[in-house]
């Protein structure tokens, strides 16, 4: 594929997403100061020494942002990976096996989706310990309901095609049908959905941390940094707006890439049209 075929908006999205990913991966080398290091006064304005100023405890804001990118993306990526593997495997299995297994699972997913995700997440988090692992599990499992619906719908269509029929007649097992026949043909709509689910994970995590129920101090993701610095807003200190804007920019850039992938794959078989 020629590089010039990539539209301008997708370039913007790719470059920004790449930039955030770079910061996240190489955080200890990129950040000028340590994550919890106190380097100055409280809420210092932007300066040459501290590009984005300092936060509510006098920590260097740009270093916090870079480490925050790492924490935000780590958890969001893990939750998205969990939701995809769980949702797609269950979705494909339900479509291939059908019968009571499909009915039971689908009704349970309907039930889970009839409660807003944030509300049910809060209900569950009220009794679970707030650790990174529980966050990933709760976010991943709640979000897998949406992946389940999509992959089941795609797999039901593929399951009746001739090549699957042929594989069944050849005597292939269910595992072969799922992983060798359905999975390769269902990939393109799933990949397009990947970006959307990742954004949802980032926004969900940020909302939880903003509410004080996500990542716990002294570590913090971008949502948690908004919470830490929000009291400065009424004094006209915009420190809380910076992590909030970073979340928005990350979400937009991933969206731009996802839109482009979606447009490219809708013409392929299995696209959502």
């Amino acid at each position: 594929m020629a590089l010039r075929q990539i539209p301008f908006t997708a370039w913007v999205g790719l470059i920004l997403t790449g930039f955030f990913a770079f910061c996240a991966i190489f955080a200890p080398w990129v950040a000028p100061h340590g994550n919890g290091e106190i380097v100055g006064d409280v809420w210092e304005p932007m300066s040459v020494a501290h590009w984005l100023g300092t936060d509510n405890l006098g920590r260097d804001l740009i270093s916090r942002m870079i480490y925050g990118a790492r924490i935000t993306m780590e958890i969001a990526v893990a939750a998205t990976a969990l939701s995809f593997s769980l949702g797609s495997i269950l979705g494909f299995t339900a479509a291939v096996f059908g019968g009571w297994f499909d009915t039971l699972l689908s009704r349970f997913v309907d039930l889970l989706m009839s409660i807003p995700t944030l509300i049910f997440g809060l209900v569950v988090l009220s009794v679970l310990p707030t650790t990174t692992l529980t966050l990933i599990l709760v976010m991943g499992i709640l979000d897998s309901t949406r992946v389940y619906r999509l992959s089941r719908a795609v797999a039901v269509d593929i399951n009746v095609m001739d090549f699957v029929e042929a594989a069944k007649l050849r005597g292939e097992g269910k595992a072969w049908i799922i992983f060798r026949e359905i999975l390769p043909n269902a990939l393109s709509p799933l990949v397009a959905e990947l970006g959307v689910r990742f954004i949802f994970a980032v926004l969900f995590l940020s909302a939880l941390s903003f509410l004080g129920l996500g990542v716990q101090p002294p570590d913090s993701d971008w949502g948690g940094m908004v919470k830490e610095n929000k009291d400065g807003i009424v004094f006209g200190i915009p420190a809380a707006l910076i992590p909030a804007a970073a979340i928005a920019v990350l979400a937009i850039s991933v969206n731009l890439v996802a839109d482009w992938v979606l447009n490219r794959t809708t013409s392929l078989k299995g696209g959502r049209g």
Partner: protein
Amino acid sequence: MSSPILRLVAQRVLLGLVLLLAVSVLIFAGTQILPGDVAQAILGQSATPEALANLRQQLGLNDPAWLRYVHWLWGILHGDFGTAQSSGLDIATSIGTRLKNTLFLAACAAIVAVPLAIILGLIAVRYRNGFVDKLISGLALASTSFPEFFIGYVLIYFFAVKWQIFPSISTVDDSTPFLERLQAVVLPATALTLVVLAHMMRMTRAAILNVMQSAYIETAELKGLKAFDIIRKHAFPNAIAPVVNVVMLNLAYLIVGVVVVEVIFVYPGMGQYLVDHVAKRDVPVVQAVGLIFAAVYITLNIVADIAAIVANPRLRHPK
């Protein structure tokens, strides 16, 4: 009203009630998933065995889970949500005013957002693929990517701090006069409107576009009907159902946005009540508020379905 509509509506309501019952089981079960002793978790490792036994007795933890669920549900059906563990206050009385506040805020947002979304959606369809349409789609993309607190704090930063037009904190109580109350919710309602507007508008656009592209609209154009007559006689009756559906689905989305927005503006509503008590691990309150949010969400979805059934001309005039 003919009987097929009534039957469909009754079916839908019944299904909703069953769903609500199932959701209550799910919410109750969701707070029981923690392995181990709840009393121990509340009191900590240093608690004396007597204190633990007392708390277990008080929380009814000696009964099996299904019996506690039945008691809990029975209480709620009689308007008794139990008492909050952290404060010992009656949950039903605490919820009363908060629910009113939240509904007031959501209603203010909806009154602005719904007509605006429909008008903008119509404009986008009218000038399809033109500059206005592209602008609206771009804004929609941006606003679905913005977290609620970004919109909220930008509003506070400019309107409350820089220009000092509105208060940054929306505290209201029972004695707040209506106009002051209205002034207090301007910023949170604006934030909520911006959160749902783009999505609602995009879906409205898709729904209307779908109708405008049907064969019978083309026929109407070809037989020379005036544009206004086409919209009034052919497009409008068929577009009501999808548009009402879109509106209701997004109102349901409002109640999720309300949780974060209330925390941003320190507005004394259901959302803040929920978040506070999740942090305090006050399970009875979380269960009660979670159930109410879920009930509102499901009710709005049922209303959306019923509106679609009632607005469907094919069901209204059976052969």
